[in-house]
């Protein structure tokens, strides 16, 4: 197990290094000189040159790469071209929107999907199963941004229960802030929940055919206990794998959803930075997102061992 985890850890680190090379390399080939973009068209050639030196753009490529990676490791992400503030300030101010949003969405989708999956598997082939899996089939097909528009229409325009978009900030109090995150979280969670419910159901059905389930039932254990204690625990590995993969989808989803709801989060920041050619922000935020995907998938690998004691000795 230790060897396995060590291998995963090394792979994760190597992926991170290669990813940083890819991100740096891709943005290097972007057309346009950042110094010129910052100063605008009227700037003199001297001013642009001076800024290039100040930003280190005159340094050799390798040196700039190492400088950038060193900065990432010490949380010194440099200064944004367009906002003229340290990138770390931008990131920390936005992460308090995106992280709660992603966490609420993840919790919501798990809280919906696992009971639905278990319920469906336990009533396999009956109308309840057909209906919930039909709903899941539709849920998978719904684009989250369209679902978001429908939610805005019903709950913000029509019922006027929540704001249609924007974010008051946590300083306005926890309740208004949470209210602003509610629709985006639901919009993000629904398609994920549909996928997760399907996976939970099919993983459970596979486990329910096993001998130990029959034994547990034969010795008189209640159906419900067998289902939730024995079967679900053994079906957790595929469910956890999908949860890990969904984290990346969730991050990507925040880019669109934050745009739909005008939320000042990381997704909107990176989208705007890309369109404004604010390379230093793009580089840093993309690396941050990629690193979090890698870390989450490492945690998923770790959690296999928690869920399944057999994996602690083998592998």
């Amino acid at each position, binding site marked *: 197990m230790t060897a396995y985890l060590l291998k995963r850890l090394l792979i994760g680190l190597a*992926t991170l290094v290669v990813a940083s090379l890819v991100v740096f390399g891709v943005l290097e*080939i972007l057309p346009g000189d950042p110094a010129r973009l910052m100063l605008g068209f009227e700037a003199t050639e001297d001013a642009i040159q001076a800024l290039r030196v100040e930003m280190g753009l005159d340094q050799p490529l390798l040196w700039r790469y190492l400088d950038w990676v060193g900065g990432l490791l010490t949380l010194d992400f440099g200064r944004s071209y367009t906002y003229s503030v340290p990138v770390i300030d931008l990131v920390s101010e936005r992460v308090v929107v995106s992280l709660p949003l992603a966490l609420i969405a993840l919790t919501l989708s798990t809280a919906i999907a696992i009971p639905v999956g278990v319920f469906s598997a336990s009533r396999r082939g009956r109308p309840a199963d057909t209906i919930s899996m039909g709903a899941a089939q539709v849920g998978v097909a719904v684009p989250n941004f*369209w679902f978001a528009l429908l939610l805005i*229409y019903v709950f913000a325009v029509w019922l006027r229960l929540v704001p249609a978009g924007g974010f008051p900030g946590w300083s306005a109090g926890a309740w208004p802030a949470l209210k602003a995150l509610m629709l985006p979280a639901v919009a993000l969670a629904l398609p994920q929940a549909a996928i997760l419910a399907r996976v939970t159901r099919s993983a459970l059905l596979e486990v329910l055919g096993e001998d130990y389930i029959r034994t547990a039932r034969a010795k008189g254990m209640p159906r419900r206990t067998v289902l939730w204690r024995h079967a679900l625990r053994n079906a957790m590995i595929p469910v956890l794998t999908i949860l890990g993969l969904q984290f990346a989808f969730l991050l*990507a989803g925040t880019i669109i959803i934050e745009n739909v709801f005008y939320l000042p989060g990381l997704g909107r920041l990176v989208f705007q930075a890309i369109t404004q050619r604010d390379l230093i922000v793009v580089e840093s935020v993309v690396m941050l997102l990629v690193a979090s*995907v890698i870390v989450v998938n490492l945690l998923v690998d770790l959690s296999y061992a928690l869920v399944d004691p057999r994996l602690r000795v083998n592998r």
Partner: protein
Amino acid sequence: MTDSTDFRSETFGSFAAKAFANRSFLAGFVITVLIAAMALLSFLWTPYDVTRLIVADRMQAPSAVHLFGTDHFGRDVLSMIMVGARNSIAVALVAVGIGMGIGVPLGCWAAARGGLADEILMRFNDLVFAFPALLSAIMITAIFGPGAVNAIIAIGIFNIPVFARVARAGALSLWPREFILAARAAGKGKALITIEHILPNIANLLLVQGTIQFALGILAEAGLSYLGLGAQPPMPSWGRMLFDAQTRMIVAPYLAIFPGFAIVFTVLGLNLLGDGLSDVLDPKLRRQR
């Protein structure tokens, strides 16, 4: 347990009979054919010309004249959805083609060679999976400029590791089998075996994955064009229509309804088709469902 279905061992007729007896396949097939027919029809005929802007007719609610209403430029929404289907299907289909065309040979090669080649491919997969696909698609389209072609490339790149993974897993399970051993004993090379024996036997897996990626491609294209990075106006696209609808939702909610339904309907059809196909092609999976 039966062996995986060899396409050549049954006639197309018996396969079709089995497939159409499957409810999921039938429903998916009907929906997919309808959408494809709508896209093809749009080349020959649409109720109205989508490039002509008639401001006098703008924002009309659905009626007998304009079945799905008109948008803020007076364009007929039904006609736009028909032309938009073309764009969605083309982008997703070519993206699947890119993924299959590059991913399948890579996966087969890794499975045949094993060792270092295999390890490198899997690590490459890890790398691509670490990048949230939409984020990278946004980066790609932002760098090379928005447009349908760049959307295809952006979505296609993320199909490569998916198909490589499926082809590799399928091929790996076949290599130790007797009929492959027999082919090797007969002196056939690895490349020839892959083409003659491996590919026909993983075709069913690839077909199922292909429909799934097709559906995901439709969703991804809609997302990109919603953000303004897909097909550019005046070419109608479903995602763009939803973006335009958002700010006008209070006065004209129907503008947001119909393009959304078009996306859901198409993706649902493809997913049902994929589910049905995997039921019919892989009897082992059917028992689990």
